[in-house]
């Protein structure tokens, strides 16, 4: 297979970014080494030769691979460089990985979001490696005066068998860096892969377990001060006035002032959501002093009235109305009930009304999911130093490319004068897509004219908004007298966003299908949360299908497989957004691996499956109920993400999805009373702990040579329903409303 070298890879040869090598972050450890001992023996090179945006090779053969995307636990800092190293034919033991800064000249889509890093990066990463390998071959060809076609590589070396010549990459790197870039490069066949498909340890593991400063919150710069913000305690409120007389003269405090993160007439783009624009900033020498001074600031808040916010949603302009008022859970629930009656049809196949009218059996259930806080373990933070018409920033961020534009607009500083270093993220889950804290940090730095690090307390973070929306879904199924599913209807919506994907399963598998959605405006801000929408709708849909299968007297896996068979052989409608074979594939795999159909004393089983973010997942969950306490004994995980890059790390991510799903389904909830969030910290917001995690998780992947897709999200949504369905088997009760622990305990 050959690959055209695209514009980006071409350009990156010509332009060596001034940021290359770490810039601002040199104080951070950069030796994300694959084998620290070997690297120590090899030592640092005297000179680096840059072959493209992703690759630098030292004269001693050491290879630096730039990891383009932010790292927040998906392990892309290992798997993305592995793909480059594969095509480069690098010796992985002589590779160090460096986090690339935000650099849109050399990289595309430096994003965490949508489980897309590997899928979207696949071609560019391979091409980068393959192109550099070709340059090294051409350099060897010139040096040895032999045809390039006779030169082969083995990890880290160039070889000309006929003459017995052999050189390590470092010996050819200086010449290679000067050669013209080939138009097309050969890519390896999958059968030739040496690194891809084999487990490689997280390149940052050693740094993590020894406590190295990897995270934004660890960032430090000479003269840096600490800043914190005070935001309104309740949604629906804004800052009226503040009195800092008791705080201003406290030890270590340098300044207290009001900031505005976005100007009122600012046209917000997709990730510019923020709950509170007007804030009080407290700046001082140390975190503890600033935390204490925060408590001494007297702030007066006031309710705001309904207003419009200008929005630009990927080119679609709108005025979003933000309603005034102090919202409570009961009112929100009532509003959802009203809105559900005025839903908008998204898809309609056949004649659902007629199907329901003539049905022998109709099953209808309502599912609800509460607001959820992301609760990243690393509280929101960012470093900013705005000076001399420039902004130097560093910290954890999911979508730096988009944030940069908002920052430029707010500071009045052109994008080329903004530098964003990407530190490791102590969790993201969507929360770090919304970078209002970066804007806040920069505005504070601009005001005090000094480098500052903004830190949110846990309470600032948990009560600051941008939650998983509150959702409701009503499902109806129509069965004929032979227990065939003849009609399917979903009506779902949320505050402030709906959860439906109308073209997903079981669309395409049912003759009469109807999907409708609605929304309820609210001043509670919402945003992306691990597997947005899917994280709720999969729970509802897969619980409902379990109930429908039971009503039809069918095994829940066989019932799904029958529907998938229909979707494959005789699909209904157009644009069905899944591959029935791959969907059935994960169900078949989990069925076999879990020995589905067998029974164990005291064990209750539930099954669930879902497709989102381009990968397929199915789970069988086994639990025991002892004295009303749930113990998940074992979860069987089956996934299809195409070709596997780094199997053990992929397993880790899928295990985490299971634990996160169980925890969120059991305990996750944030409610409002008169605009006040009912939870502020982990003493109130229950997070899953070790004893509640499954005793065992067994993860299997469908063997596949399809181009790889992601795993950050797909394994998460189905877990909720696997748990609900197992709980039904254990208790005889269906679990319709999250969090489930409430129903169990109540």
């Amino acid at each position: 297979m050959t690959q055209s070298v695209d514009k980006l890879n071409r350009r990156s040869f010509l332009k060596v970014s001034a940021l290359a090598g770490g810039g601002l972050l040199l104080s951070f450890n950069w030796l994300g080494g694959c084998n620290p001992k070997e690297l120590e023996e090899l030592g640092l090179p005297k000179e680096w030769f840059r072959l493209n945006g992703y690759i630098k090779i030292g004269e001693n053969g050491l290879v630096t691979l730039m990891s383009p995307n932010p790292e927040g636990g998906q392990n892309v800092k290992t798997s993305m460089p592995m793909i480059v190293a594969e095509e480069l034919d690098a010796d992985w033991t002589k590779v160090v990985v460096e986090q690339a800064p935000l650099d849109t000249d050399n990289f595309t889509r430096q994003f965490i979001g949508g489980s897309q890093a590997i899928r979207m990066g696949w071609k560019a990463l391979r091409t980068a490696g393959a192109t550099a390998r070709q340059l090294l071959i051409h350099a060897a060809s010139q040096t040895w005066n032999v045809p390039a076609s006779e030169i082969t590589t083995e990890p880290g070396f160039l070889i000309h068998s006929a003459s017995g010549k052999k050189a390590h990459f470092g010996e050819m790197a200086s010449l290679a860096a000067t050669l013209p870039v080939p138009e097309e490069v050969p890519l390896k066949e999958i059968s030739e892969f040496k690194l891809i498909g084999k487990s490689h340890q997280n390149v940052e593991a050693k740094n993590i377990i020894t406590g190295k400063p990897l995270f934004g919150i660890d960032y430090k710069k000479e003269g840096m001060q600490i800043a914190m913000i005070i935001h309104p305690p309740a949604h629906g409120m804004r800052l009226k006035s503040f009195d800092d007389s008791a705080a201003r003269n406290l030890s270590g405090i340098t300044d207290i002032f009001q900031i505005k993160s976005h100007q009122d007439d600012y046209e917000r783009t997709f990730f510019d959501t923020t709950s509170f624009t007007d804030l009080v900033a407290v700046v001082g020498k140390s975190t503890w002093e600033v935390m204490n001074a925060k408590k001494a600031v007297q702030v007066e808040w006031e309710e705001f009235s309904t207003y419009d916010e200008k929005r630009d949603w990927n080119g679609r302009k709108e005025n979003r109305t933000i309603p005034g008022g102090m919202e409570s859970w009961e009112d929100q629930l009532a509003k959802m009930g009203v809105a559900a009656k005025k839903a908008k049809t998204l898809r309609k196949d056949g004649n659902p009304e007629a199907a329901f009218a003539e049905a022998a059996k109709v099953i209808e259930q309502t599912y609800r999911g509460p607001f959820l806080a992301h609760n990243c373990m690393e509280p929101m933070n960012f470093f900013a130093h705005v000076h001399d018409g420039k902004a130097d920033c560093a910290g954890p961020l999911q979508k730096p490319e988009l944030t940069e534009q908002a920052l430029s607009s707010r500071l009045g500083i052109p994008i080329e004068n903004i530098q964003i270093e990407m530190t490791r993220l102590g969790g993201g889950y969507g929360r770090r897509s919304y970078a209002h804290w970066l804007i806040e940090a920069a505005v504070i730095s601009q005001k005090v004219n000094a480098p500052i690090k903004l830190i949110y307390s846990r309470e600032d973070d948990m009560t600051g908004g941008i939650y998983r929306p509150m959702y409701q879904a009503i499902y109806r199924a129509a069965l004929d007298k032979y227990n065939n599913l003849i009609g399917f209807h979903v009506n779902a919506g949320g505050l402030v966003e709906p959860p439906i994907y109308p073209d997903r399963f079981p669309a395409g598998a049912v003759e009469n299908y109807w999907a409708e959605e609605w929304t309820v405006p609210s001043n509670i801000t919402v945003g992306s949360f691990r597997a947005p929408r899917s994280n709720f709708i999969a729970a509802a849909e897969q619980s409902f299908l379990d109930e429908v299968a039971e009503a039809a007297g069918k095994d829940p896996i066989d019932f799904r497989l029958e529907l998938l068979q229909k979707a494959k052989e005789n699909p209904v409608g157009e644009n069905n957004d899944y591959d029935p074979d791959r969907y059935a594939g994960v169900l078949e795999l989990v069925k076999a691996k879990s020995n589905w159909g067998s029974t164990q004393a005291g064990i209750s089983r539930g099954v669930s499956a879902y497709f989102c973010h381009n990968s397929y997942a199915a789970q069988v969950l086994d639990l025991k109920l002892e004295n009303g306490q749930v113990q998940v004994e074992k979860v069987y995980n089956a996934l299809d993400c195409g070709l596997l890059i780094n199997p053990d790390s992929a397993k880790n991510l899928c295990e985490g999805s299971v634990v996160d799903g169980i925890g969120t389904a059991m305990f996750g909830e944030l409610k409002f009373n008169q605009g006040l969030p009912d939870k502020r910290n982990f003493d109130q917001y229950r997070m899953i702990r070790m004893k509640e995690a499954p005793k065992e998780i067994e993860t299997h992947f469908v063997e596949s040579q399809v181009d790889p897709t992601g795993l950050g999200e797909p394994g998460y949504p189905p877990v909720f329903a696997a748990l609900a369905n197992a709980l039904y088997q254990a208790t005889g009760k269906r679990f319709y409303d999250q969090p489930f622990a409430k129903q169990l305990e109540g």
Partner: protein
Amino acid sequence: MAIFNLNINGTSKQVDVDPTTPMLWVLRDHLDLVGTKFGCGIAQCGACTIHLDGNAMRSCQLPVSAVADSKITTIEGLSEQGDHPVQQAWLEHDVPQCGYCQAGQIMSAAALLASNPNPSDTDIDNAMNGNICRCGTYTRIKAAIKTASQKL
């Protein structure tokens, strides 16, 4: 402000801070030992776990004035080469995802194994109950603790 002489990772350190300052912030802001993490500030998440005379302690609730002559060990001082059996087991099981909580997890696990070299599953669950892992690496953490236990 007051001067405190502290024994941290086997060396003596002097800081001049407000006596109410939690050790977490003394370590992070004043001594540049940032391996100990801030997670909640109310001893509910365990990210800030250190050893005080060998016992696991949440440093966010430990004022510097209460430390006196006690020996403090942080993740940076758990071993010289990062090769404490618990750290080695963490590498063997490639435990971390985001990694933010792992220093606290390792400190809790090391303290557990120091006092109970062969913990049962329940012992492990109890000792690690104060440490949240948001990424959900609990099954690997438990497996790593068992591996470390065999090597002690």
